[in-house]
C-alpha cells in the first residue's frame, strides 16, 4: 500500500499515478474487510476503486497526460 502510494506520487505519467491510487483503495478495502468493517469495505471498493479512478481518468483525458517540469507539485486536474 505504501509502495503504491509512493509510486503514484513519483510517477510522471498521470494515468499510471491514478491507477496507483486505485491500487491503494483496493488494498485499503481488503484491510477494512479484515478489520471487520464490511460496510466501509464495500463503500471503499465501489467509490475508491471504481468511481474516483474513472472520474480522474476522464479528467486526464480532457486535460494533459504527462506532468511537466514547471508544475511538478500540482496535478493539472480541472475538478
Amino acid at each position, binding site marked *: 500500500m505504501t509502495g503504491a502510494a509512493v509510486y503514484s506520487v513519483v510517477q510522471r505519467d498521470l494515468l499510471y499515478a491514478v491507477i496507483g491510487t486505485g491500487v491503494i483503495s483496493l488494498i485499503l478495502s481488503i484491510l477494512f474487510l479484515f478489520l471487520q468493517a464490511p460496510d466501509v469495505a464495500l463503500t471503499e471498493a465501489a467509490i475508491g476503486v471504481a468511481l474516483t479512478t*474513472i472520474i480522474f481518468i476522464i479528467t486526464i483525458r480532457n486535460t494533459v497526460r504527462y506532468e511537466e517540469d514547471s508544475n511538478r507539485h500540482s496535478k493539472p486536474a480541472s475538478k
Partner: protein
Amino acid sequence: MKKILVLSLLAVFGVYLAEVLFKIDFGHQFFLNGVKDFYLTASPDKLKVANVVTSIVVNFRGFDTLGEVTVLFLATTAMSSILYKGRHKLGERAVLFSSSRIVMTGSKLLFPAIILLGVYVFVHGHLTPGGGFQGGVIIATGFLLMLLSYQDYQVSHVVLSVVESLAGITFASIGLIGLLNGGTFLHNFLHTGVLNNLLSGGVIPIIYIAVGFKVGAELTGLIYTALNEKD
C-alpha cells in the same frame, strides 16, 4: 527555504498525529461507555434490524443521512451545471479507446449482473453489509461500463432527474409522516416485523431503497455529463 518550512510543518503535524496514534493501542476499546450499548441492544430488539450500521445511519441518525443526500445532490448539480454545454452529436462521445466486439459483448453480459448486485446490496441493506449508497454506486458503475463500451448508448436526463426527485421526495415524506405519527422526524411508524426477515425494520428498507435509487441516478448523470464534455 520554502522546502524547510514545508518539512517543519509536516514534522509538527506528524508528531501530533503520532502522539494521538500511539496513545491508543491497536484494537483497543477506547469508548468504554456511551451510546454504543444502546445502539447495540436497541437495533436488534426494538427495530428488528440485523445490521446495526444501517439502523444508525437510517433511523437513529436519519436526519444526518438526509443532509448527506442533499450534499451529494448539490455537488452533482453544481458539477453538471459547470460541465453541461449542450447536446453532443450521436457517436461523438470521446471514449478512451474504441471498444472491440469482445468488450461490447462482455459488457452486455455483465451489465444486468452488476445492476442485480447493486439492487441486492440496497434491498438487503438492513440485513447484510451495504446499503443505499453502496448499491447506488454499484449501479452507476454498471451504467459507466455501458457508456464506455457503446458509443451510442444514451441515458435520458429526464428519466434520471424524475427518479432522483421521486426518491428524494419519498425520503422526505417518510420523515414527515413519522413526524405526524410519532412526534419526531423519521419516526419508525411501520410494523417492525421479525428479525432477519426481508420485510423487517419498518421504514428502514424503504428509505434505503429510495437512497439507492437517488445515488444511482445522480452518479449516472454525473458520469454521463462528464463523459460527454467537449472542450
